[in-house]
């Protein structure tokens, strides 16, 4: 099973990053835009608070939004390009096709997040370090990694479910963008919270110990439920061949 998941993931990544066997035309340009924004521009603007406060949490939606294009295409794109039926006629199990596409999308989104956070760390140290090594405090680092992973999985599962039912990639993308916007509204809202939540590192750390586990719990439950629904509903007979 894991080997089959790996095979589908390999195919998805080849299509995404090395289309036609070359780097040209891959998703690098879109990834670089996110990396530039979340790894360079915003950290430079925010300064040391980028690593010392949970402000980066508010920007986790950016790489996740980047994932939507990939995940919207996952099934609807195969259907639109007439490759879905051939894929379904192969020996790959339904679950491996689903999980392979999820792993590829989550890997892309989460990988981009981690890379952006690392680049952001370097940029903040170069721009605002003043001879001191600034690092993400452990609770913030753990929160960023866990939230982006759980959030990425949520986007990916919702995306696959939407994509499997959408008649076209365009519609899948539209539906998914709306769903994502609604999901991230509360996070956008955190920018308007009392400044104290974001600015002083010590207060933020204590808040984060309460809020993030709760948020992770909610995401974990949502991810688990949606993943179960996806695994049950993703069946050859239900993918529009009728």
């Amino acid at each position, binding site marked *: 099973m894991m*080997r089959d998941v790996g*095979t589908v993931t390999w195919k998805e990544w080849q299509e995404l990053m090395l*289309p036609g*066997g070359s780097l040209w035309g891959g998703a690098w340009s879109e990834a670089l835009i996110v990396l530039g924004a979340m790894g360079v521009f915003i950290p430079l603007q925010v300064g040391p608070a980028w690593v010392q406060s949970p402000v980066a949490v508010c920007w986790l939606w950016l790489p996740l939004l980047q994932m939507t294009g990939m995940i919207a295409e996952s099934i609807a794109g195969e259907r639109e*390009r007439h490759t879905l039926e*051939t894929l379904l006629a*192969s*020996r790959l199990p339904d679950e491996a096709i689903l999980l392979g596409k999820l792993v590829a999308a989550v890997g892309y989104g989460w990988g981009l997040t981690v890379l952006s956070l690392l680049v952001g760390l370097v940029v903040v140290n170069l721009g605002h370090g003043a001879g001191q090594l600034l690092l993400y405090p452990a609770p913030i680092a753990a929160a960023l990694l866990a939230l982006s992973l759980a959030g990425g999985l949520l986007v990916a599962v919702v995306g696959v479910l939407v994509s499997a039912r959408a008649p076209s990639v365009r519609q899948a993308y539209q539906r998914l963008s709306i769903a994502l916007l609604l999901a991230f509204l509360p996070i956008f809202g955190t920018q308007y919270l009392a400044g104290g939540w974001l600015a002083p590192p010590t207060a933020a750390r204590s808040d984060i110990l309460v809020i993030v586990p709760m948020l992770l719990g909610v995401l974990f439950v949502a991810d688990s439920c949606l993943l179960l629904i996806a695994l049950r509903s993703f069946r050859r007979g239900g993918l529009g061949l009728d």
Partner: protein
Amino acid sequence: MSRRIEPGRGEWAVRTEALTRHFGAVRAVEQLTLEVPTGTIFGFLGPNGAGKTTTIRLLLGLIAPTAGRAAVLGYDTRVQADAIRCNAGALLEYPGIYERLSAEDNLEFYGRAWRLPGAERRARIKELLVHMDLWERRRDSPTLWSRGMRQKLALARVLLHRPSIIFLDEPSAGLDPEGAVALGESLLALARREGVTVFLTTHNLGEAERLCDQLGIIRDGHLLTVGSPDEIRARAGGPRAEVRGRGFSAPLLERLGEQPGVLRADADAGCVRLELRDGAQVASLVRLLVTGGAEVEEVQRYRPSLEDAYLALVSAEP
């Protein structure tokens, strides 16, 4: 029916029993009972919307039947579809080529999907691409390839894992005649060499006649007939003759129709068409026409073609 047999080793590669599939009010496949012997090339013919593609989807277990049952390589399509797909290859309505992958990566992906070990996979990919004359273009994206090249790549993908049975849904559709013949020859050579059963749908009757051991003709979901191309041709009737000229009067036609070797005689626009019994002599019939006052310019005796037989079957009243 549902007993398991060694893949590809049983007597029948495909067996269906009253297989039926409805889509709402549309009866796509109705009571289809069919047996395809292992190791043969079976041609499934029929007009558009006759139920050919639906039959292939049913046999691959991609959709469930409304009623009836089917077994492919001894595996029940309802409960052992995974085993069928493990041992089958399919070129469906579209080539199913990933245009964002190179030709080689397309095969690499499906080689991995069928779990071919690395060295064997690479050797097999090379063997097939060389055979299909695509090896030099293996790193190309197939986006700008001709339809024929894409079909050849798709055929290579179908054969990659040495399946026991392959399903081909109109593989030569959209190809020029040379391309269709070349693809057919590739298919025939590979099928014979590798001993696979081929289940082929096509509108190209010449291709069906040239390639297939057995043919089935389906219309509106109903199987009309099954047999070898010769048998199906024979079912369209015995020898025929066409006489072109002038002066084919009604009494002359009536006399012609009364001759012992003649089953039926029709005339229109300077042409008499005769349906004959086996062994009937055309020369004596021509003599009768000439002595009766007709002028004969050209006489042609022929056997009904597969096309004649096919058209007679699919255009007949149900």
